[in-house]
C-alpha cells in the first residue's frame, strides 16, 4: 500500500470524525458559501439594466472599432496621397533642373564654338595674306620710287 492510498484510506469523510481544525474550516466554508448565496439570491435583479448596458457597450465597442478602422484607413490614404504629391513635386523639380542643366550646357557649347570660330578666324586672317596684298605692295613700291 502506497503512502497516498494509505492517507486516502485514513481520511474519514464524515465531518464529525474529522479533527477540530478541519471541522472548523469546513464549517466556516459552509457558512461563507451560504451567506454569499443568500445575499446574491436576494439581491435586487437588474437583468434588463444589465442587458441594456451590455448592448450599449457592444454598440460603443463596434463604433469605436469602426472609427479606428476608418481613421487608420483614411490616415493611410492621406499618407499615401501626401507621398504621391511629394514624389510628383520632386520629379517635376528634377525635370526642371535637368532642363536647366541641358540649356546651360547647350549655351556653353554654343559660346565655346563661337569663341573657337572667332579665334580660328583671327588666326587665319593673320597668317594668310589677303588676296590683293601683293598688288598693294607693288603699288606702294611704285609710289615710293
Amino acid at each position, binding site marked *: 500500500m502506497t503512502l497516498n492510498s494509505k492517507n*486516502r484510506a485514513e481520511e474519514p469523510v464524515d465531518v464529525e470524525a474529522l479533527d477540530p481544525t*478541519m471541522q472548523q*474550516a*469546513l464549517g*466556516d*466554508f459552509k457558512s461563507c*458559501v451560504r451567506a454569499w*448565496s443568500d445575499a446574491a*439570491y436576494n439581491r435586487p435583479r437588474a437583468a434588463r439594466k444589465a442587458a441594456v448596458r451590455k448592448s450599449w457597450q457592444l454598440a460603443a465597442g463596434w463604433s469605436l472599432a469602426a472609427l479606428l478602422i476608418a481613421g487608420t484607413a483614411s490616415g493611410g490614404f492621406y499618407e499615401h496621397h501626401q507621398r504621391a504629391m511629394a514624389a510628383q513635386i520632386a520629379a517635376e523639380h528634377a525635370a526642371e533642373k535637368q532642363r536647366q542643366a541641358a540649356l546651360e550646357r547647350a549655351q556653353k557649347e554654343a559660346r565655346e564654338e563661337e569663341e573657337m570660330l572667332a579665334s580660328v578666324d583671327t588666326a587665319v586672317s593673320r597668317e594668310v595674306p589677303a588676296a590683293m596684298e601683293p598688288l598693294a605692295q607693288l603699288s606702294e613700291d611704285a609710289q615710293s620710287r
Partner: protein
Amino acid sequence: MAACTALNAMTIARAEEETAQEFASIVQSHRPQIFRFLLASTRDVDLAETLTQDCFLKAHRNWASFRGESSAMTWLMRIAINLQKDHWRNRRIQFWRQTRANAVDLDEASDWLPSCESSQEQRLLARERVEHVWRAVEGLSERQRTVFLLRYVEELELAEIAKTTGLSEGTIKAHLSRALARVRTELGGRR
C-alpha cells in the same frame, strides 16, 4: 356525449393546473439550493443565475418524464451538474467568445462570513481558513469539487450523492478523501 367531453376537458385543465402548481412549489423550495451549489461551483453570480434558470427550464420541459424514482432535489441537482459540465465544455471549445471570466477571486469569495464570530481576531482567522478551503476547492478536479460541495456545503448523504452523480459510494468516498487531503494540506501549509 357533449357533457362527457366537457368533463374530460375540465379534468385535463385541472390536472394541468395542479402540475403547474406542483412545479411552482418545487421551484420555490429548491431554487435557492440549486443556485447555491452552482454559485459555489462557478464563483460567478451571473453565471450561477443563468445556469439555475436553465436548470429549471430544462426541468419544466421534462417534468412529465420525472417519475419520482429519486427525490426532486436529486433530479434537479443532476440537471444542474450536467448543465455546469456542458458550460465548461463549451467554454473550453469557444474560449475566444469569452472576453473575461466573471468569477470573483478567492479573496472576495472569502469575505462572506456570518458575523457570529465574537472577536475581530476570530473573524480574521475564520476568513483565513475559508480562503484556504476556497484555494483547495479551486485546485480540485471538476468531479472532486462537485462531490465535495454536495457533501460539505449541501450536506447530502453519500447515497444521495451517488444518485445525483451516478458514481458509486466507493468512488465518492475516494474523491472526498482526496479533496479533504487537499484541504488539510492547504490549511497545514499556511499555518
